[in-house]
């Protein structure tokens, strides 16, 4: 029974590979179909290899506009949510004030709320305020729902920070600003970065809340949804693949830099 023995010894690796395959299969499909040349308007069946879509990624009317809008919103929402969320996290960890416990749990509420309910009630709010639906209403909504995630990520980091580090900085002639820039911020940075990445991803592909509050503005997820009714251009897969590649490159670069630093130290 050499095969059974072999299987026993490598079971963990095999199970791991299957799970990884399960995780990555959708990405593979997206990538493969970005090189398809569909016959009709729908990119659901493999026909033949082609790089047409890659040569002309903005060839579909309105798509690149919506993509650029989504990226802009994501960047601003990330910035807004990260700055506000970091401040909230510091306030919640560092200061004792009345109703601190209540605020602590209220911060989690938006995460627990069904998105579609929040979307509908936000729309009601905006309409009652007489707000013009569009870029700004989307941005406000995105910052709002990204906040809880940023607060959670940063808070975990700040909580594990030794307050004596800041006292040590002060003791070593660093004023309040210097202490924050040289000690507090660098140590909290991994938490802040995690929060920011989360916010960017959440904002970029949000559909439900955006769809309710966009008015006539069309973001990239809305465009994909809309075009799926009438036919899916291959360019959607091109954008998806490109984003995936950018993310992978991002991770690889940070890993390489990390390794090199460790080697220098050793």
């Amino acid at each position, binding site marked *: 029974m050499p095969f059974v023995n072999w299987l026993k010894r490598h079971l963990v690796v095999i199970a791991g590979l299957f799970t990884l395959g399960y995780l990555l299969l959708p990405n593979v499909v997206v990538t493969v179909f970005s090189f398809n040349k569909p016959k009709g308007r729908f990119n659901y069946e493999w026909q033949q290899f082609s790089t047409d879509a890659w040569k002309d990624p903005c060839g579909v009317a309105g798509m690149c506009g919506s993509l650029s809008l989504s990226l802009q919103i994501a960047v601003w929402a990330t910035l807004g949510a990260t700055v506000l969320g970091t401040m909230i996290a510091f306030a919640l960890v560092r200061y004792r004030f009345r109703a601190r416990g209540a605020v602590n749990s209220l911060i989690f509420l938006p995460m627990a709320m069904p998105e579609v309910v929040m979307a509908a009630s936000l729309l009601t709010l905006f309409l009652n305020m007489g707000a013009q639906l569009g870029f700004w209403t989307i941005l406000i909504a995105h910052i709002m729902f990204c906040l809880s995630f940023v607060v959670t990520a940063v808070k975990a980091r700040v909580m594990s920070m030794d307050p004596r*580090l800041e*006292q040590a900085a*002060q*003791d*070593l002639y660093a004023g309040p600003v210097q202490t924050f820039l040289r000690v507090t911020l660098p140590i909290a940075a991994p938490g802040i970065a995690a929060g920011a990445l989360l916010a960017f991803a959440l904002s970029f592909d949000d559909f439900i809340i955006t769809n309710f509050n966009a008015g006539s503005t069309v973001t990239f997820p809305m465009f994909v949804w809309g075009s799926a009714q009438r036919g899916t251009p291959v360019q959607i897969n091109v954008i998806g693949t490109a984003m995936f590649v950018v993310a992978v490159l991002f991770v690889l670069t940070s890993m390489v830099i990390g390794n090199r630093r460790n080697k*220098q130290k050793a």
Partner: protein
Amino acid sequence: MKTTTDNSGDVRLTQIGKRYGAFTAVHPLDLTVPEGSFFALLGASGCGKTTTLRMIAGLEEPSQGAVHLGDQDVTHLPPYKRPVNTVFQSYALFPHLDIFENVAFGLRRRGIKSVKKQVEEMLDLVQLGEQARKKPHQLSGGQQQRVAVARALINHPKVLLLDEPLGALDLKLRRQMQLELKRIQTEVGITFVHVTHDQEEAMTMADTVAVMNAGRVEQLGSPTDLYENPRTTFVANFLGTSNFIEADVDFKTGDEIALNAGGGKLFLPVARCSAPAASGGKVLVGVRPEKISLTHADDAGEIPEGRNRITGRIADSSFIGVSTQYVIDSPVCSGFEVYAQNVDRDPRLTPGAEVVLHWNPAHTFGLDAAQDADAGVESVEEDAA
């Protein structure tokens, strides 16, 4: 390295105190630490020693009183404007910076550009030249401790504050670092103020020790002075072990007080009695365990005249190599402790044996009888556990 002739390294605390709401952490106290000395604040946890240190550093705002460094009033200066540096408990090294940058931190904040030479010299002083590019978490506890000292010392502070700097190290390393710190202090000549709960550490390292208890300085003096002439039972028990006998004052001659304890006569030098000791009053007579000699009751006649003596029975004895520790029950005091060097051991000194305890009256000290004879005992045991 750097020597100053003025007294700018003096630390003067004037009526300094700290209250948190209704709780008084430090009762108003006056303290002067002379320039260039190694000063220890000794006490159990919660006695206010760390609060006092943090008030000198500027990390704690005093509720009253003033802090002077030399002639400069620094009471209301923020920590980053005071010429003092601190070695924190558990070091507080910056985890995102390497050893070199940790040590260079203070210099850079003061706008000094060429730090390389100074940092390297300082790392050599603490024998960490090889580790400059490592991160703090890659070093051992003892090495981290030395980085913390280097990071503070490189700024040539007028005063170096050390907050239980050796608390996290194991016993052997602690001994080594005690000598190391003492060496560095002698080498740089900066005033060191050291906070510790370890009486041995304080006595080994410091020139002057202030024993603190419940927010007050109980007694201040050189380690020998504190050990030989404790003025309160707390100090007597916190530093080493003491035996106490409650005695009545019989009469006073020129420089000796004659006392009566359970029918026996004891003598006490007037200079070593911190209590008023009026005739007819009471005094707590103290004597350290190692000052006492034990003689078997059968040989009582051989004891020279003029020694204080009491009789008792050995309740327990434990052999610990260099010495033997006896616990003796006597009519005047139960649980008398005696440490005898193992030079000529009398084989008859076993539990149950009747003995005479005797010592030179000059080694007796007298305390006010109105205090708890066990003050300071418990806290020592707590720390040892």
